C-alpha cells in the first residue's frame, strides 16, 4: 500500500533525495573533471567548472615511450603494468576461489558431514581476519620460499579475502535452489556428480556470476597485501599511492589514475547492482 502525500511533501522529499545523491556522486564527478584538466587549470583559485577537456593526463599515465614530452618534465609513469597485475591477480583469485570454494559451499548447503556448522563458522570468521597480523609473518615466509612478488603467491594470499566470501555466497545461493529437483533426478537414477554438474550448476549460474563480480571487486580493492608482499607485481592500488609522492603538482595525473581504478567498479554496478547489494551486505542481511 502506498500512501498519498501532498505534492509539497513529495517535492521536498525528492529534493532531499537529490541532495543526498549529489553528495554521494559529486566527488566522483569532480575527480573526472580534474583528470581532464590541464595542470594550470587545476592550480587556479577559484576552481573552474568550465574548461577545455584534454586527455593529456591519461597519456602521461600510459605512454611510457613518450615520457618527458609533457608539461610535467621528465616524469616516467608506468601505469599499464600495475593494471595488468591487478587484472591477473583478481581474475586468478576469482578462478581459484570458484574452483575450491563452490564445492565447499555445495557440501555445506546440502550434505551432512561432521562438524558442519563449526566449519561454516570458521570460514565466516575470515571475513573479520586481521589481515596485517597474517601478513607480518607471511612476509618472511614468502621471502624464504620464493613466493614474494610472484603472481602465484599473490593469488594464494588473496584467497584470505575472496575464498570465505565465495563459500558463503555459493552456499546461500544453493540453499535457494529447491531440493526436490535434485531428489527427483537422483530418483531417476542420475549419479550425484551428474546431478551437480547438469542440474545444480546451470541453476546456480546467475548467482555464481554475481558472486564472481563481487569477489573480483574485493580483489580489485585490496591494497595492504600488495603493498607488503609484492614490488614489480604490485596491484594498481599501490601504484596509485606512488603517484602522490612527487607532490601537489601531480594531482591531475593522479586523478586520471583514480578514474582508471574507478571505471571497473562503476561498470560492475551497471551490470550487477542486485548481486553487489546482496554481496556487499552479506552476513548482515540474508
Amino acid at each position: 500500500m502506498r500512501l498519498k502525500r501532498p505534492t509539497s511533501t513529495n517535492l521536498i522529499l525528492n529534493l532531499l533525495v537529490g541532495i543526498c545523491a549529489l553528495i554521494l556522486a559529486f566527488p566522483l564527478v569532480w575527480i573526472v573533471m580534474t583528470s581532464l584538466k590541464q595542470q594550470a587549470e587545476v592550480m587556479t583559485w577559484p576552481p573552474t567548472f568550465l574548461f577545455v577537456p584534454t586527455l593529456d593526463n591519461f597519456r602521461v599515465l600510459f605512454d611510457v615511450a613518450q615520457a618527458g614530452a609533457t608539461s610535467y618534465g621528465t616524469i616516467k609513469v608506468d601505469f599499464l603494468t600495475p593494471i595488468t597485475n591487478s587484472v591477473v591477480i583478481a581474475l586468478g583469485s576469482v578462478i581459484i576461489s570458484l574452483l575450491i570454494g563452490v564445492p565447499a559451499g555445495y557440501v555445506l548447503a546440502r550434505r551432512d558431514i561432521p562438524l558442519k556448522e563449526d566449519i561454516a563458522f570458521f570460514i565466516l570468521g575470515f571475513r573479520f581476519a586481521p589481515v596485517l597480523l597474517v601478513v607480518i609473518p607471511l612476509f618472511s615466509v614468502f621471502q624464504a620460499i620464493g613466493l614474494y612478488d610472484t603472481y602465484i603467491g599473490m593469488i594464494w594470499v588473496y584467497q584470505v579475502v575472496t575464498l570465505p566470501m565465495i563459500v558463503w555466497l555459493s552456499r546461500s545461493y544453493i540453499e535457494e535452489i529447491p531440493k526436490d529437483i535434485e531428489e527427483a533426478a537422483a530418483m531417476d537414477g542420475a549419479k550425484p556428480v551428474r546431478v551437480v554438474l547438469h542440474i545444480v550448476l546451470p541453476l546456480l549460474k546467475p548467482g555464481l556470476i554475481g558472486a564472481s563480480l563481487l569477489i573480483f571487486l574485493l580483489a580489485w580493492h585490496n591494497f595492504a597485501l600488495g603493498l607488503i608482499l609484492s614490488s614489480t607485481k604490485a596491484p594498481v592500488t599501490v601504484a596509485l599511492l606512488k603517484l602522490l609522492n612527487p607532490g601537489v603538482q601531480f594531482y591531475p595525473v593522479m586523478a586520471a589514475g583514480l578514474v582508471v581504478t574507478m571505471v571497473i567498479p562503476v561498470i560492475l554496478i551497471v551490470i550487477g547492482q542486485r548481486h553487489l547489494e546482496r554481496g556487499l551486505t552479506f552476513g548482515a542481511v540474508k
Partner: protein
Amino acid sequence: MTLQSSTSQLASPKDKAVTSAQDSRLDWWSIAAITPAIIVLLGFLFLFFYGVFQSLTDLKFGRPLVHFIGLNNYAALIKTGDFWNSVRATLVYAGSAVLAQAVLGLALAKLFATDVFLARVMRPVILLPLVLPPMSVALMWTTMMDPQNGIMNYLLSLAGISRFAWISDPNTAMFSLVLIDVWTYTPFFALIIFAGLQGINEEIKEAARVNGAKGWATFLHIELPLITPYILIAAVFRLIESLNQFDIIFGTTQGGPGNSTSVLSVRAYITAFQNLAFGRGAALMVVNWMIVLIGTFAMVKLWRLVRQRVG
C-alpha cells in the same frame, strides 16, 4: 518357492550393502570437495598463530638470532605514550565513524524508503562509494581536501567559511578522516536498514495509524525497535572493519600529521616494515585484534539483548 525366498533373503542384505556403500562414498565425495578450501584457510590460521608467536619474540628483519622474550614487547609498548595515543586514535576513529554512520544511514534509508520518484531512480547511487577501492577513495579526498586549492575549501568559502586545514593539521586530521569514512560507509548502513524497513509489515504500521499514532510516534515506538537489530548488526560489521582500517588512513595521512591519526594498524605497519621490528609490529596487531574481539563481543551481546526484547 525355496529359490524365491533365498533370492529375497540374499537381495535384502545386498541392497543394504549397496546403499551403505553409496552413503559412505557420498560422504567421501563431500569431504574431498570441502578439503581444499579448508586446507587453504587453515594455512592462514596457522600464519595468524605464527604472527601471535612472533609478537613474543625480538624478531627484526635481517637479525640472524631470534629470542623468545615473552611479553617484553607488550611491556615495552604500554610504557610509551605513543602506544596509548594509537589506542585512543583507533577507538576515536572507529567509534565516531560508526556512530555517525548509524545515524546518517538510518536517515538515508528512511529517505529512500519513501519511494518518491528520485528515490527509485537514484537507488544505484547509494552503492557508489562502496564499490570504489578504499585507496582510491582516500586519494580522491586527499585531492579534494587540499588546503591550498582543493574543492572542499572552495565549497566552504561559498558558505562564507574561511579556509580549513583538513588532513594537514593535527587538530583537524582525525575529523577529516572520520568524514571520509562516513562518506564511504554510510551507504552500507543505509542498505541494511533499508532491507530491515522493507521487512516491516505494512499492517503493523497501518494498525498504529488507525489507532491514532502520529508519523513520528509510529517511527519511534514501532519502526525503530523493529529495525534496531539491523542497525546493530551493521554496526558490528562496520566496527570490526573500521577498527582494522588501514587503507583510508594510510592513503591520506599515513598516521600524521605528528601522531594525530596514527591508529594501531598504521603504527604496526610502520613498526614492522619501516623500522623492521617485526616482533613489535606483530604485538601491536595482536593488541588491535584484541580490541576488535572485545568490541565485537560487546556489540553481539547488545544485539542479542535487543533481539530478545523485540522478540
